[in-house]
């Protein structure tokens, strides 16, 4: 019956594609929404559109699917672009009449067949979380909590959190608002970033012909062919439309500053390529980056094109694109800067009468010079104002006299000496300049900076001040579009104030004009484009002229005074296409770049030729398709007066069966320079890349890519090298309950060297504590130091290798087995840089489940990060355990656990500082069916080897005994109480412990107690009270009391 129904369903939707419906509409040139004829509707029948069968033709030419959608439940066609007046629109679709379904509510659709491959790979970067539902009634939901905590150590703290979601309709205005605000003392696990993520206000409003968004929004404006000016910001945007008029306005505080980077790759280095103004590191606005490789936009993702670390701005390419010295990388991004308060304003107006269009917009963003991160004195502002637009001179002294005993440094002649926290009279800020460019170095034994002589260090006692800037842009556009003919005229004026401290604000004005003329039909397309720019004209916008330098022989956009370009395309037959283009660039130094070329597609053959000034580029590709084989052969050459690059590649793709596809490519690139008579080969690079994807239902999945990259230096005295790279993902599921999965990856990259600095921030205010004997810094939430990581801008070549796997065997009755492991190693040619790994194996014995459930496990981990010498010391640990959980016997359930632990802390890769080995046995019974008392007891004896840092202690023993009693009581359905008291005792065979061991495991008695009270007043209000007590022998007695009232509505 079931299979029959299933078959019938598919026959209904797949073989008999419902009923076909067709209707005609005449457009009025204004509306974008047209009613459909309701003749396909019948009483009690709800039409369900079969996706993929709907088409809209305008003057019998199919309309792009992205430009319309059919809403059968609303019985309407919605056009997403305005069509010329009196256009004849034909609407065709298939539908299934489904009886008994509701007609109101959201649209339903039947999806035919499987998702297409290209659909799965369609990647959009954001989820639209601000979707505005229509609402007829006001609805409010959310929560509000208010609490305070009182601790003997941390004092009193107040925390509050508010979340309100409001939606409704008033006077035909649909409103949805989301307000979220948190404030609390930041706990060790939380970070400021996490808090910022949740502090938000979003208000969306929509009325007839207008819509507005306030809060966390994307504010910007399109500047036609000049690019798109948009920023992620906090502010408001309003857009309106009435008839042929449209209006938009917005004001916001952008989260970041726009920047652009353009550079060539390095042979054999997949990254990191820092997207940072200083070339070292910058915190980026997440998701704000746009990355291009050789003119093609890339997609972020582990299995896509690149990954990026937003906290450092480091961009790393995946193995899908092997980076070489010819790889042209361009990126646009927004980076966080808190130097000045920034604001942004946009305004736009559009009119579209018939085939004409007029647009005008204004964009302004800038810093507020009065709101600097640190207060600047009038003299400092005058100093900065005097330098005009020369930002390289924007330095101020880093030393400030703060009074005797208030600072950390004292002045000795022309330099400053660190004398200890609160022992000097100067506070000094230092800036990293680079090796042998400064006079100071950071000394981690001092915990401060030390003067080492002029140009003998890498820091200076000055600070670089970013100059406050502002930019204004006015953009205008007019155009005419009739049938196949289009013409547009665009103009932009840009004013940049490069130093708002300067008297004339170091203004630079520039403008640009862009004119296009085009004709396009299915046979011919002709376009002409002219652009004239004033000196220094370059909008801070996502540009459309990607790969500008490559197309114009190395010229930069700022060089452009004028360009004229002419493009043509001719497609007489489906198998023949001819393209041609002609261009001329006039630079500000009056140099001229001429470019011309064209291409031809003849069936499977594609050839093209371009000449840019003295440079010639020729490319030919043959890519036939024979049954399931698609071979490909290509050849290209770039010829300049002083350089010749030739490359050829051979490869292809195969898809012999539905479950398998693969491909291979071998590419050779030769670099040559002219000799006295002929071209002399300098070096040759070869890349062999293979990819495969084998998927047999769920049984087997093997996918990945791999290859080799090698470089041979012919006449240059450098070492030849070769690198193997690859990614393998495999999964084997021979039967239900049996899973084997693994993944491995190897790639070549660089690692940026870092310096760890520890700055004293006051007793108990930091996250690190300093061991006075070893000089090391150890993580302690109640420490006195904060850790600051400085990126040095120096890179070392490295190989990254990782593999991991999972095994699950749960199909055998007596026992189940699960295991997983992961390992990652980054190393240079000669040394390990970082290493991390873990494994976990568990065996669950089911055979004895009726009275006891044993679990046996093994686990371990290791980590080392040699780029962080202080905090990245090597540690390894492993654990074996057996756990027994009994069913109720004589009203008692018992959980026993016996584990063996070994922990190793290393001073270096091959020298152990000390090791801990020992057992831990715990028993936690639950007594009584009614009282459910939870007593517990554990004993943990262990032996610690002689620590290298504390040789006087020798080898010693450490024993921990712990017992506790807990009970949970529920009073009715509204009150829950839980109380726990415990006592811990630690004993050692030595009078004191190594500092680090003692910090986490102090000797002596430690009584502990906790009490939790939860009460629900009603469905909305609840309160919780918590009290904890701990009396560690090495600290003062700690009491902590917290209260929280929460309303959920």
């Amino acid at each position, binding site marked *: *019956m*079931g299979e029959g*129904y*299933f078959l019938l*369903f*598919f026959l209904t939707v797949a073989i008999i594609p419902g009923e076909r419906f067709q209707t005609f509409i005449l457009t009025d040139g204004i509306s974008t929404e047209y009613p459909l004829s309701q003749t396909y509707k019948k009483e009690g029948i709800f039409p369900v559109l079969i*996706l993929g069968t709907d088409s809209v033709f305008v003057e019998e030419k199919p309309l792009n699917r992205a430009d319309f959608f059919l809403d059968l439940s609303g019985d309407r066609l919605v056009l997403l672009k305005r069509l010329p007046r009196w256009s004849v629109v034909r609407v065709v679709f298939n539908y299934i009449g489904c009886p008994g379904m509701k007609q109101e509510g*959201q649209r339903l659709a*039947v*999806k035919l067949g*499987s*998702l297409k*491959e290209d*659909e*799965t790979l*369609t*990647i*959009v970067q954001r*989820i639209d*979380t601000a*979707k505005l539902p229509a609402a007829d009634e006001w609805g409010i939901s959310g929560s509000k909590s208010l609490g305070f905590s009182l601790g003997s150590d941390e004092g009193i703290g107040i925390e509050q*959190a508010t*979340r309100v*979601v409001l939606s409704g309709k008033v006077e035909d205005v649909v409103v949805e608002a989301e307000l979220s605000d*948190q404030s609390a003392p*930041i*706990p060790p696990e*939380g970070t400021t970033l*996490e808090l910022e993520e*949740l502090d938000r206000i979003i208000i969306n409003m929509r009325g007839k012909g207008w819509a507005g968004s306030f809060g966390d929004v994307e504010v910007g404006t399109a500047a036609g062919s000049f690019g798109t000016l948009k920023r992620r910001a906090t502010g408001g945007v309003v857009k309106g439309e009435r008839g042929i008029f449209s209006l938009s306005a917005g004001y916001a505080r952008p989260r970041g500053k726009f920047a652009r980077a353009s550079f060539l790759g390095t042979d054999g280095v997949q990254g990191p390529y820092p997207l940072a103004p200083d070339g070292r590191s910058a915190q980026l606005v*997440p998701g704000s980056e746009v990355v291009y490789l050789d003119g093609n936009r890339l997609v*972020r*993702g*582990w*299995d896509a094109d690149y*990954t990026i670390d*937003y906290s450092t701005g480091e961009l790393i390419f995946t193995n899908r694109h092997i980076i070489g010295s010819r790889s042209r990388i361009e990126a646009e991004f927004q980076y966080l800067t808190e130097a000045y308060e920034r604001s942004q304003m946009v305004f736009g107006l559009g009119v579209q009468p018939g085939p004409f269009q007029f647009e005008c917009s204004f964009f302004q963003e800038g810093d507020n010079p009065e709101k600097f991160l640190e207060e600047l004195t009038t003299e400092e502002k005058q100093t900065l104002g005097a330098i005009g637009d020369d930002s390289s001179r924007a330095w101020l002294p880093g030393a400030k006299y703060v009074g005797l005993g208030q600072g950390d440094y004292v002045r000795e002649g022309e330099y400053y000496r660190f004398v200890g926290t609160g022992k000097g009279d100067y506070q000094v800020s230092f800036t990293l300049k680079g090796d042998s460019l400064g006079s100071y170095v950071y000394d981690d034994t001092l915990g401060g900076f030390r003067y080492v002589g002029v140009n003998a260090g890498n820091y200076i006692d000055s600070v670089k001040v970013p100059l406050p800037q502002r930019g204004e842009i006015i953009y205008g556009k007019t155009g005419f579009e009739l049938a196949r003919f289009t013409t547009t005229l665009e103009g932009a004026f840009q004013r940049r104030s490069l130093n708002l401290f300067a008297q004339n604000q170091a203004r630079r004005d520039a403008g640009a004009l862009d004119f296009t003329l085009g004709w396009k039909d299915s046979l011919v397309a002709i376009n002409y484009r002219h652009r004239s720019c004033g000196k220094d004209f370059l909008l801070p916008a996502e540009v459309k002229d990607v790969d500008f330098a490559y197309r114009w022989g190395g010229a930069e956009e700022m060089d452009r005074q004028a360009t004229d370009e002419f493009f043509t395309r001719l497609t007489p037959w489906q198998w023949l296409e001819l393209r041609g283009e002609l261009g001329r660039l006039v630079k500000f130094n009056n140099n001229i770049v001429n470019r011309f070329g064209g291409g031809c597609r003849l069936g499977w053959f594609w050839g093209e030729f371009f000449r840019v000034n003295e440079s010639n580029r020729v490319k030919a590709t043959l890519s036939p398709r024979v049954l399931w084989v698609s071979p490909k052969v290509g050849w290209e050459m770039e010829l300049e007066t002083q350089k010749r690059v030739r490359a050829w590649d051979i490869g292809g793709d195969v898809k012999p069966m539905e479950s398998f596809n693969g491909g291979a490519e071998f590419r050779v690139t030769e670099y040559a320079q002219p000799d006295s008579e002929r071209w002399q080969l300098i070096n040759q690079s070869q890349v062999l890349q293979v990819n495969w994807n084998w*998927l047999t*239902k*769920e049984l087997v*999945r093997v*996918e990945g890519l791999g290859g080799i990259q090698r470089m041979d230096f012919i006449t240059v005295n450098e070492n030849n090298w070769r690198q193997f790279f690859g990614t393998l*993902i495999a999964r084997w599921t021979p039967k*239900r309950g049996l899973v084997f*999965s*693994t*993944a491995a990856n190897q790639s070549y990259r660089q690692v940026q060297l870092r310096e760890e600095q520890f700055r004293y921030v006051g007793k108990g205010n930091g996250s690190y504590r300093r061991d006075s004997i070893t000089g090391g810094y150890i993580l302690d939430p109640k420490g006195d130091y904060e850790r600051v990581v400085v990126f040095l801008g120096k890179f070392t070549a490295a190989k990254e290798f990782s593999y991991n*796997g999972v095994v699950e065997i749960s199909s055998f009755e007596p026992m189940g087995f699960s295991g997983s492991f*992961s390992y990652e190693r980054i190393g240079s040619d000669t040394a390990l840089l970082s290493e991390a790994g*873990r494994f976990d194996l568990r065996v669950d014995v089911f055979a004895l489940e009726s009275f006891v459930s044993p679990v046996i496990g093994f686990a371990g981990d290791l980590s080392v990060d040699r780029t962080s010498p202080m905090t990245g010391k090597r540690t390894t640990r492993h654990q074996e355990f057996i756990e027994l959980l009994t069913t109720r016997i004589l009203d008692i359930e018992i959980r026993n656990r016996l584990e063996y632990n070994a922990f190793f802390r290393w001073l270096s890769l091959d020298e152990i500082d000390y090791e801990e080995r020992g057992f831990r046995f715990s028993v936690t019974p639950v007594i009584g069916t009614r009282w459910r008392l939870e007593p517990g007891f554990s004993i943990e004896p262990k032996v610690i080897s002689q620590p290298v840092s504390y040789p006087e202690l020798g080898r010693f023993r450490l024993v921990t005994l712990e017992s506790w009693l*807990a009970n949970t009581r*529920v009073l009715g*359905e*509204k*009150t*829950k109480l*839980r109380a726990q008291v415990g006592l811990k005792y630690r004993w050692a065979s030595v009078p004191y412990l190594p500092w680090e061991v003692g910090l986490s495991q102090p000797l002596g008695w430690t009584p502990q107690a906790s009490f939790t009270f*939860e009460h*629900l007043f009603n*469905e909305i209000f609840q309160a919780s009270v918590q009290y904890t007590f701990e009396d560690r022998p090495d600290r003062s007695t700690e009491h902590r009391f917290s209260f929280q009232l929460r309303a959920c509505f």
Partner: protein
Amino acid sequence: MELLSTIVTEGDVVDICVDGEKVLLLEGNGARVVVLNSEFAIAETIPLEKRLVSARGITADRYYIYLYDDNTLYRLAKDKLNMSVWLNNISVAGLASYAPGEMLVSDRRRRIVWFKTLFGESRSFLEPVEVGQPGEMAVFPEGIFAVLAAPNRLLKVNRAGIVVSSILVPEGVDLLTADKKGRALVARRGEKVIWLVEDGSAKGFELTEATDIRAIATLEDKLIVLDGANKILIFFLPHRSS
């Protein structure tokens, strides 16, 4: 139950969840999340920065998408798409949204249900003594959560972590979801029967179109079933019996 639609996916899917009006699919290769819109057409694909070797599950709240493998729970901010580790060394058996940014996490190994709060700290919500062997979790209307506590027990718990009812469910069920009317739906992985738990009794529905139920979720009046690794079945939920 009335079948409304069938979707066959190109890649393997290991888990599904509902996010507002959207349905999220976690692909088995652990590299992508596919988003279906309310019309069950592909809306977008979210690439993950870090691949989950043994991707297990997915859930979502207003701000985040939560993903887990056999050992780690990750959190992915929806508007920024940056993925970070939220809990290490955990075998997640189920998740339920307590409030946006706050989750109840069912920990299979420690036999405890954690309340992972906004600021990142974890505190126990249900102790081993209360929950025994925690499994899948679901959110019911009016501040009630449910957790599969043993192979045949469904515990309903209020916001204070008090068990308000313990319902007998068919033996061995390990999948759980709830609809907006407060009804629980449970199923056993690998089978084709869905049990609708309503007013303390369970009514079984054999999904003849399904062969191997892997995950279930509800969206308004519809039940979404992951059948095998490549098929999503969408059914209309039965009307409430009372």
